[in-house]
């Protein structure tokens, strides 16, 4: 049966994605689990309403998703300006159930080193395995991690590209369970495509990963873009489910970081500084 509902205040005071409007439109209602509580989402005036044991839960509709929070005063959701740019296509590329903690899934999203091994021939390819020096900072102006100047050789960086190139990335982690990456658009070099992962923590070791993008591309069909992203996530899932332990260890001595993992190191420190104790193995535990 369901585990004890989460009581971690850091998690409770955040907004969490529960379903995309896309999916809700089709299905009309949706039942799922959030922080070890059963929730139900129904369409309503203003978009949607979230219920838990028939009682209303704080609900927010933003960035194409329904978000819920069990907190007393959850801070507003992080900014995601690309979502509102009129000439971008917003494509929901899917939702994936994975037996892993949210932290491990976010780290995987930030990680370039696995491209040649896990996404062989698509996002990376041997012998081009080097993760070049990049910069990571915890943004002064807002509470988020920013990794810039990330460059990686990619044989086929997006649906619309068919030759290899060094692709430049920027990663943002503006929420413990959400991340957005920006990479040069293969169609328009001066613009950046935005690709997001919003993780819905169902339990400490069980998530739904909501993925999608806001891109400049009018050649590919939604189906192409979805299949591409499904392939990528399908390759990550078996790896994520074989990480051991499944919760993200915050003790620096639990695993062996290298320079390529700078962003993951910053992420673990940032979570530890927030005092997060759920879905992670806190340092000293």
């Amino acid at each position, binding site marked *: 049966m369901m585990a004890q509902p989460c009581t971690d205040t850091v998690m409770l005071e955040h907004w969490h994605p529960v379903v995309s409007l896309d999916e809700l439109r089709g299905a009309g209602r949706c039942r799922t689990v959030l922080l070890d509580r059963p929730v139900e989402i129904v369409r309503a005036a203003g978009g949607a309403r979230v219920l838990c044991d028939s009682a209303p839960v704080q609900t927010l509709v933003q960035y194409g998703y329904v978000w819920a929070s069990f907190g007393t005063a959850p801070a507003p959701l992080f900014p995601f300006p690309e979502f509102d740019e009129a000439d971008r296509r917003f494509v929901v590329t899917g939702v994936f159930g994975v037996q892993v903690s949210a932290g491990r899934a976010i780290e995987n999203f930030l990680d370039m080193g696995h491209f040649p*091994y896990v996404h062989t021939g698509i996002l990376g390819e041997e012998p081009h395995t080097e993760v070049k020096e990049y910069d990571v900072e915890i943004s002064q102006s807002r509470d988020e991690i920013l990794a810039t100047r990330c460059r990686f050789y990619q044989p086929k960086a997006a649906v619309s590209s068919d030759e290899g190139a060094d692709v430049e990335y920027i990663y943002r982690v503006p929420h413990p369970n959400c991340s957005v990456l920006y990479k040069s658009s293969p169609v328009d070099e001066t613009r950046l495509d935005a690709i997001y992962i919003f993780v819905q923590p169902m339990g400490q070791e069980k998530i739904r990963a909501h993925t999608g993008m806001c891109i400049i591309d009018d050649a590919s069909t939604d189906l192409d873009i979805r299949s591409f992203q499904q392939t990528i996530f399908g390759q990550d899932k078996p790896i994520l489910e074989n*990480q051991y332990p499944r919760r993200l260890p915050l003790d*620096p001595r639990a695993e062996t970081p290298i320079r390529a993992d700078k962003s993951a190191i910053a992420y673990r420190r940032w979570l530890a500084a927030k005092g997060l104790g759920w879905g992670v193995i806190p340092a000293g535990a």
Partner: protein
Amino acid sequence: MEMLDLAGWHPIAASSDLPTRHVFHGQLLGREFAVWRADDGFVNVWENRCLHRGVRLSLGLNDGRELRCLYHGWRYSSRSAGCTYIPAHPADAPARTICNRTYDAVEAAGMVWSSVAPEAEFALPEVLAGADPLVLRPVPVNAAPGVALALAEGLLPDARAIGAASVSFAEAGLVVFVQPLDAHRCVLRGVLLAQPDDRMAALRYHDGVLCGLRDRIEASGEVAPPPLEVGFQPVDAALAEMPARARSGPKAELRVQVARKWDAAQDVAGFQLRAVRGVLPAFQPGAHIDVHLPNGMSRQYSITNAPGESDYTIGVKRDAAGRGGSVCLHGDVREGDVLAISAPRNNFPLRRDSEKVLLIAGGIGITPMLAMAQALQVQGIPYALHVFARSEAHVPFADRLAGLAVTRHLGLDAAGTGAVLGDILSGYAFSHHVYVCGPAPMLTATREIAAGAGWPEEAVHFEYFANPEVIDDSTSFEIALARSAMTLQVPAGRSILEVLQENGVDVPSSCEQGACGTCVCGVLEGEPEHQDVYLSAAERAANDQIMTCVSRARSARLVLDI
């Protein structure tokens, strides 16, 4: 409930679970193992967790010598379980302390045996002595191991307990071992003591016996205890931060025995060095060891071995005019002698993110190139090994060259060598790398020809045996140590390294003549007077690092990052 015996030896797999290049997922007392056989037959039992990001190594790839993790491609050597390569940083040598947890393993009577915390060497259970057993299919049971054992004893007719973890069923020559997976789960591993006449019938019959036994154990209704809580060993504190360079002086922490000494070529003696106790640490291609000699000297020799080999093999060229190291090794050291050596250190790492690798060896300079060529061969990266020598009799380790992509260039003079190098080095393309080791004039020629043929400096990697330059140590200057907050005077006739070591600052060193790169130190301020042969021209010009054993200061003061 009985205490689970962590010291006991248990079967964890059948030999047939480890076919060529497979990785088997084993379990014992709440631990998970990655169990794999190297091509030389050695059975590795490792904690099933990559040290990098915790991915199960049982998902990894067994290349016959190394295990490659599926997530980021880290490679771990058979036997030592040390990490030999981190693809995200192809130009760096991984820290030696990145080493997986290993468990003891013995293969006997058609099974692999292991123990979580052995207190004694493995001893084959007496019933199996001299048997040619037939190992049956393992039957997993949802019950505490102790419960299963007690019930098996009661349920099989004529059964008697014969050891802490096994019962035998005398009549049919059946022995059942209970492998404790965890506090609440176990596996019945049946063994027939003799090969039956009708194999199929015997397998079917005994499988029925074991499955029946499982059903009755599970039906007994004993409540299984909760699973064991197993912690992980934390990694080395130094590794938990992003690893910096290891700080250690010239050490001789290992003892090896000369297992074999032979003529590897004219004037070259081969030495095969074997651990006196335990397993030698993993080495990477390009690595060298310091060998401490009976005459008090210490000399550096490259390891020539292929990945996953258990011993270190070095080649020593007799140099009668040298400082006496080679003469001592040739003359005084015999098979069976014990030598002190340092752990391998790699200042000549091999990038494996190349589309093509050229390896150029002159004479005894072949030693690091051999290790590189064998690693590239195993990994399937295109390479060409060019060996320059006076004659075939002067080519060391010819036996190891068989099967490698090697071209020999024999008996050439300087002009002839230059012409061949010109040929070899034509056609540079992105992602090509060249490695060269040999006599100083040949290295210099190779570097010049490569530069002329358009090779960028960062694609040309070299290792000098010795520094051919005459070192000028007549200057005196001041050094300030930024991190240790000390200011020291370096007088004429003494090196920075000596002054540091005399003042208790631990700086690793090896060749102490500016060739190996071990004693490097960052420079924060001041202008070094470079006298080494390790740094490339661009690295010298940057003036941000210095070889403390030979280089000095052009400015009155140097601020060092130490």
